[in-house]
């Protein structure tokens, strides 16, 4: 850990064991290593049925007829539901725009769209019954890119749009368009000594969380339903589910089941409404578990993008201007495309101080798979393009690429293209300097890695155990990249979280209980929540209550926001509890010791102490049998919508910065890449749990590596998904993933709880362009598309 600037207000309870700043272990760790942790797909209930979804084999088709009679007649089949069985007039849902049908009606708009749902006694019975549903389709022409989507006479995905964005887009097949204009890019271009422009492309990445979409809906006696599900935001699910079922929200009781990763892919609904519909229809509990094939159709993906960029620079290495146009493919339904557009536009400039910019970002409606949230959320695509441009500009000017970036790096006080002044540390130059200073890994490690000392260990070479080279044709390259990501929900969204904190004496010990609706998806929120309660309440015993809708919304586990926002809510509720505890103490003991009324008091190690360290009373004696509780919403500072025409506005809560250095070895004859090391430096403001922070950085880095060299959902020109399996959609294995040294800076953001900065997404951004930069250095190729495939390197 390096530079540290910690706010002084951290002293409350700081001597209490297991508080913030320590690498305490996961509270769910033991259950997860013994196999007892109950993931959504592990749920079971007496008399439970299995649900299954029939999906469209076509990307765009009219539904001429649906006949479910044969499927319904199969032994063991309990229900088959189609659009006609939906119970209310609300038949669509969506996170931002309710344009997604619960079940298709009249038309399917993408490959894999749900058409019918089945409940049966055995999952195989349900699958076989689905094959007996007769759906007659009449195929329609598809739109699959910008040209086809905006061509004259192009079929419109949603001809009668009523959403707010529909009024200002240039074409009804454009979900949302956000320009950002600041300064005068055309005039600034006149001062440039070099101008570099290029078109870049990012393939469609999948979140590939390992725990498939799953949940269990249990019908209740009051006509409602209890839903146990893996999601990222219980209350957003609830808001979308209730109107479709025609139930008040309090009759749908949601509990978070164990979540096997998310990465954005669980923001949109998948099986939630379907399982509830089947449970309410059959009167029996219904479990739905997608298999991997279905999972590839069951959630949105990262937007594939085409990005055109132009930069100019002077001979002394100063960037004069930037112009860009970013086209994201949103697929058939809106999902979070409008917010992704806002992010891509507002972060398109990267972590650089450029006064004169002209930016346009938009998302299309097409017949491709719907795209939405994935870790990095619009910033990933832009980062690949602007960082590729930085390398080219540096090369044109004959400057070192790190030095060129440092000359143009933003810092605290820099204005973003939105006109927002960056008002907390922005150590872009510093994280690059640290990376550059790290020692490089030794060359030709395959020679030294052999057990006998001189043998070749093919496992250290491109191609690995395939034994495709012993070092011939292998060239090393080193590349750098840096990125900027926003933290929290932006553009005026009311981004709050709720925490209920209780303090009571159990068995003579003070015990805190923290209840929030935060979705623990693996990130370790439950670990830091307990740490915050220990620090704020000075107790060691903390229980984390299961996340459910009996408590107010915690917002989404996305946008790197939960430690900031739900962590902030817990801190806030703990402060309210602490104040009540001190009031009780003053009333009980104030007359016996003046310090109760005159000193600054802390809760520490289970006691009330003065800031001078004098112990006034154990918490157990202060509380006796009283229970103190606070249930409070907490908000970060507000943001503003971006102006529709100019993109100006205080759009983001906080920015976070990470940089990577990639060292690769490329078998130039076969086009195989081995990433040897992928170092990361990141400012995290304050590492509440250093072990978890490092885990987030290494995990995000690896997903960026996947996008660089292997991960892509291949969609045919006919808009069909070609590789919906882990056989054909590759994610990095432990053999593909290098050592990931991490250097953490802690420069406090005074606006945030404990000065922390959201961690999870920033490392996903710069990882990809750093790897590409290294491959370019090794091969001399331009490489304007990710993922890079062997044929791109060999030209075959």
């Amino acid at each position, binding site marked *: 850990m390096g530079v540290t600037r910690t706010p002084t207000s951290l002293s409350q309870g700081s001597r209490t*064991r297991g508080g913030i700043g*320590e*690498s305490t*272990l996961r*509270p769910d*760790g*033991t259950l997860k*290593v*013994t*196999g007892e*942790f*109950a993931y959504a797909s*592990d*749920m*079971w209930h007496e008399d439970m049925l299995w649900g299954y979804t029939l999906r469209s084999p076509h990307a765009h088709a009219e539904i001429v007829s649906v006949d479910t009679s044969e499927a319904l007649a199969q032994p063991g089949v309990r229900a088959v539901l189609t659009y006609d069985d939906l119970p209310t007039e609300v038949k669509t849902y969506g996170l931002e725009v309710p344009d997604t049908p619960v079940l298709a009606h009249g038309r399917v708009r993408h490959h894999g769209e749900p058409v019918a749902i089945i409940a049966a006694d*055995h999952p*195989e019975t349900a699958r076989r019954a689905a094959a007996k549903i007769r759906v007659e389709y009449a195929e329609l022409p598809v739109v699959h890119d910008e040209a086809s989507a905006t061509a004259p006479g192009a079929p419109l995905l949603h001809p009668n749009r009523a959403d707010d964005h529909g009024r200002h887009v240039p074409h009804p097949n454009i979900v949302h368009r956000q320009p950002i204009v600041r300064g005068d890019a055309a005039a600034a271009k006149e001062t440039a000594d070099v101008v570099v422009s290029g078109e870049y492309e990012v393939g469609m990445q999948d*979140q590939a*969380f*390992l*725990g498939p979409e799953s949940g269990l809906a249990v019908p209740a006696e009051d006509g409602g339903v209890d839903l*146990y599900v893996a999601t990222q935001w219980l209350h957003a699910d609830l808001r979308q589910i209730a109107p479709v079922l025609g139930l008040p929200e309090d009759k749908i009781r949601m509990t978070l089941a164990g979540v096997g*990763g998310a990465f954005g892919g669980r923001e949109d609904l998948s099986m939630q409404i379907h399982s509830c519909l089947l449970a309410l229809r059959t009167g029996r509990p219904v479990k739905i578990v997608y*298999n*991997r094939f279905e999972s590839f159709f069951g959630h949105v993906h990262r937007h594939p993008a085409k990005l055109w960029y132009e930069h100019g620079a002077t001979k002394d290495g100063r960037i004069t201007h930037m112009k860009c146009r970013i086209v994201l493919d949103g697929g058939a339904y809106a999902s979070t495309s409008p917010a992704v557009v806002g992010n891509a536009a507002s972060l398109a400039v990267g972590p650089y101080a450029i006064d004169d910019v002209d930016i346009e970002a938009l998302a299309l409606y097409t017949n491709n798979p719907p795209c939405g949230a994935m870790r990095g959320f619009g910033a990933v695509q832009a980062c690949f393009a602007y960082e590729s441009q930085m390398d080219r500009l540096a090369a044109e000017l004959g400057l070192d690429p790190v030095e060129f970036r440092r000359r143009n790096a933003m810092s605290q006080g820099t204005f973003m293209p939105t006109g927002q002044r960056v008002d907390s540390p922005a150590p872009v130059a510093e994280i690059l300097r640290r990376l550059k200073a790290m*020692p490089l890994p*030794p060359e030709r*490690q395959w020679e030294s*890695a052999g057990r006998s000392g001189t043998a070749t260990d093919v*496992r250290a070479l491109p191609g*690995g155990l395939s034994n495709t080279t012993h070092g011939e044709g292998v060239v090393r390259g080193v590349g750098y990249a840096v990125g900027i990501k926003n933290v929290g929900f932006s553009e005026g969204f009311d981004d709050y979280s709720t925490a209920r904190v209780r303090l009571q004496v159990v068995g003579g010990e003070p*015990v805190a209980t923290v209840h929030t609706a935060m979705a623990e998806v*693996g990130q370790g929120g*439950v670990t830091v929540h307990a740490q915050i309660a220990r620090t704020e309440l000075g107790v060691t*015993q*903390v*229980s984390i209550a*299961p996340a459910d809708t009996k408590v107010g919304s915690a917002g989404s586990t996305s946008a790197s926001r939960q430690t900031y926002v739900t962590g902030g809510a817990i801190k806030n509720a703990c402060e309210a509890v602490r104040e009540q505890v001190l009031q009780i103490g003053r009333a009980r003991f104030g007359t016996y010791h003046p310090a109760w009324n005159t000193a600054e008091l802390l809760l520490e190690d289970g006691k009330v102490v003065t800031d001078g360290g004098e112990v006034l009373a154990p918490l157990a004696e202060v509380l006796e049998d009283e229970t103190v509780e606070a249930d409070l919403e907490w908000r970060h500072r507000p943001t503003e919508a971006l102006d529709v025409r100019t993109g100006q506005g205080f759009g983001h809560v906080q920015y976070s910065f990470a940089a990577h250095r990639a060292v690769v070895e490329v078998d130039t004859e076969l086009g195989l890449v081995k990433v040897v090391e992928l*170092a990361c430096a990141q400012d995290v403001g304050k590492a509440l749990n250093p*072990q*978890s922070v*490092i*885990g987030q950085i*290494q*995990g*995000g*880095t*690896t*997903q960026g590596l996947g996008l660089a060299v292997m991960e892509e959902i291949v969609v045919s020109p006919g808009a069909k998904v070609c590789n919906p*399996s*882990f*056989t054909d959609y590759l*994610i990095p294995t*432990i*053999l593909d993933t*290098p*050592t*990931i*040294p*991490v250097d953490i800076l802690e420069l406090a953001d005074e606006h945030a709880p404990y000065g922390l900065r959201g961690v999870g997404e920033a490392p996903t951004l710069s990882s990809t362009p750093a790897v590409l930069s290294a491959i370019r250095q090794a091969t001399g190729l331009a490489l304007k598309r990710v993922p890079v495939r062997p044929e791109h390197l060999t030209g075959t």
Partner: protein
Amino acid sequence: MRVTFQVNGRPYEADDVWEGESLLYVLRERMGLPGSKNACEQGECGSCTVRLDGDPVCACLVAAGQVEGREVVTVEGLADLARERAEGGCGTGACGSRGGGARSTAARGTSVDEARRWEARPAGAESGARTGESAALAPVQQAFIDAGAVQCGFCTPGLLVAADELIERTGQPSDADIREALSGNLCRCTGYEAILDAVRLAAARSTDGGTATDGGTGPGEGTGTGSPAAPAAGTGA
């Protein structure tokens, strides 16, 4: 059909098994052992790794009928296996079957009531885990917790079974050996660094008779993770 086999040292009989059912389905849905995970059900991710007569296999690719008369060890049996190994036994099924009472066949999956009981363990239990609750864990399980190798945890059971087999087989595996042995187990959360730390830690502890607890890979100071200058960082695969 009826299938009779041993799971984690206990005899088990499953009736009315459909011919197409996998071992994974029988474990998860008929036996109440959902620890083996269903991440891909096509043999690509390793999350359902179990030992079949000692060999690590993907339970999703084994037809239930193939395990007739054989011995299976799942993540739920790792602690017992480690204990037997420490006592000089075999336990994997690679050297003949073991005794033990019949398991109740009524349990299936995780009931909703059971699922509700998950709560944070208090700090004392966490940090004192090596002396307290660790009695119930295999060394490799404790090492995964200590090294931060668990995030969402969905890959963890399969990795634990594979890593345990590797350490049993090789004692002190090199980093390249670890990467090779675990290359069939996908993890999406961790970037694998903490998993390497965990396996190194488990191997070190097993060599030291289970007493090595601070070999530099404890929480917050993992080798190869904390600092670019850490000596173990550059070994790679």
